[in-house]
């Protein structure tokens, strides 16, 4: 007791100083998020001195280096991004949900101990390696199957992005399925439903909001993925017409052009504007998913 009192005022100051340091680190997260938004916005604005916002958002032509008439339309790339992303989710969502259901309802504890780290490992494969696999393995397979001259198509991108979105979908969906109270399951089994019926008619409906959130988070991942689509989709600068054509996404456009563009030109600013669009899209997906998950957590508690 005495030794504590000895420290007196000085000790109090030290304690509150230490707390301030930790608090500042916590606040950094908010500052970084706002900072990203603010700096992207600030760097995008000069682009709109030459390009109208309407042209940027609704025109399909993107040709900033044309000497006669540079074009700054984002729509083709936006459509490509959405197409590749939806294609990926069409594969990743059912498979991901199935794996999540297997982990939560079928797998023995030992099987779980093996499968879960493997899924984590899947998330750890660098995107550039996935893109490389797209060039060397999946792409040629697509070319052979559909008799194309090369396999660098939207389909290639979708297949690879599906792999990259899987871990997110699996882990969030599994968490949601596991959060369903045991009493729900027991009640269903006691009424004579078997385990499959319980899974499909009780557990999945009860966890549906979390499953939707996992879909949205997987979508955010796929939209923002750069290296994989850059390497695997061929990057043809045109409005996409089908999964067997080359497409060029928003992220790939930034990656291709930012290295060559002279600093502080309209083209340079326009690339940051694309970045801003990406940031806003993923921000709202993440935010909505977050709100859904919070609500579910409160409901199931």
């Amino acid at each position: 007791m005495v030794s504590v009192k000895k420290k007196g005022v000085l000790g109090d100051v030290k304690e509150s100083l230490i707390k301030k340091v930790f608090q500042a680190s916590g606040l950094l997260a908010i500052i970084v998020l706002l900072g990203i938004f603010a700096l992207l916005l600030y760097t995008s604005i000069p682009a709109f001195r030459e390009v109208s916002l309407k042209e940027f958002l609704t025109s399909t032509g993107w040709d900033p280096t044309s000497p006669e008439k540079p074009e700054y339309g984002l729509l083709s790339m936006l459509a490509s991004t959405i197409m590749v992303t939806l294609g990926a989710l069409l594969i990743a969502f059912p498979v991901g949900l199935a794996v999540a259901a297997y982990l939560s309802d079928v797998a023995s504890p030992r099987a779980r101990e093996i499968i879960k780290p493997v899924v984590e490992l899947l998330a750890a494969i660098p995107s550039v390696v996935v893109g490389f696999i797209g060039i060397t393995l999946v792409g040629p397979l697509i070319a052979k199957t559909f008799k194309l001259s090369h396999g660098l198509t939207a389909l290639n991108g979708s297949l690879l992005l599906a792999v990259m979105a899987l871990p997110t979908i699996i882990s969030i969906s599994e968490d949601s399925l596991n959060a369903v109270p045991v009493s729900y399951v027991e009640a269903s089994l006691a009424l004579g439903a078997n385990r499959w019926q319980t899974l499909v008619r009780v557990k999945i409906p009860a966890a549906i909001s979390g499953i939707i959130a996992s879909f949205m988070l997987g979508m955010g991942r796929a939209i923002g993925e750069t290296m994989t689509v850059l390497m695997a989709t061929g990057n043809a600068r045109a409005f996409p017409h089908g999964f067997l054509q080359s497409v060029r996404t928003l992220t790939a456009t930034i990656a291709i052009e930012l290295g060559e563009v002279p600093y502080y030109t309209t083209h340079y600013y326009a690339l940051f504007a694309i970045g801003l669009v990406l940031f806003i899209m993923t921000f709202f997906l993440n935010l909505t998913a977050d709100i859904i998950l919070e609500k579910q957590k409160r409901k199931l508690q």
Partner: protein
Amino acid sequence: MKSSVKKSRRHFRSQLTQFVGFLALRISVYSVLFMLLYFFYDLGSKGLGAISWEFLSQVPRRGMTEGGILPAIVGTFLVTLITALFAVPLGMAAAIYLNEYARAGRLTRLIRLSIRNLAGVPSIVYGLFGVILFVNILKFGTSILSAGLTLGLLTLPWTITASEEALKSVPDSYREGALALGATKWQMIRTNVLPYSIPGMLTGAVLGLARAAGETAPIMFTGAAFYLPFLPRSFKDQFMALPYHIYIMATQHHAIDKARFLAYGTALVLVAFVVLFNLGAILVRARLRRKWRH
């Protein structure tokens, strides 16, 4: 009599659906496992031949159609070092704030929301941010420093989350014991919380860093160089990096067919590095988890 036949038929049908349903789940899992194994097999079988001591210890030669990847290994190591120095202490500090100091309230909710949202910001957007902030505003130029700090920001949400998990696993009784003996909050954290959570924190940090080391988009414009046949001399230099090198070898090389072999080798080195760190972390974590259960 009739109704019991009907009943048993219905029972049979629902049992059949269950069998088919569970089979479908099982097939999904096996196909994911098979796919991953096949990836590894393909990379391993085609990349192993490229790997030799020369490959790991020499600089690229003849326009990157011969020689090794030493500058890329060193570059990735140095960048990850900067990332670690930036993201690990800050991540730990933020986690300590959230788990030990923060009260439930609007500010804490906002911090947590920001962290989760930062984890979902596309990596190329971090790259753009790095170009503006570190390369241009802070004038670090395209350098190891700029790229390392950009990756540091990207890693921050992962290190915070992992550190918080580690702090949460320390039982409250440890904290109460210290406080009951008259320790101040910081004394309690220093003597009764940190010593038990540091291993978990570092494990999480290593996982985050292994992932950061494999990122390409954030370093493309903040410091990674196409081809530098020597090692960087300072943190203000540009550098070669393993992931960027794979991208170059696979798509931007003037003789892609000649370089394919070396690209496989480089990809294998990067994947081996990431997988080893992950397996290590998984094992350590499993041991820590068992320890706290008792």
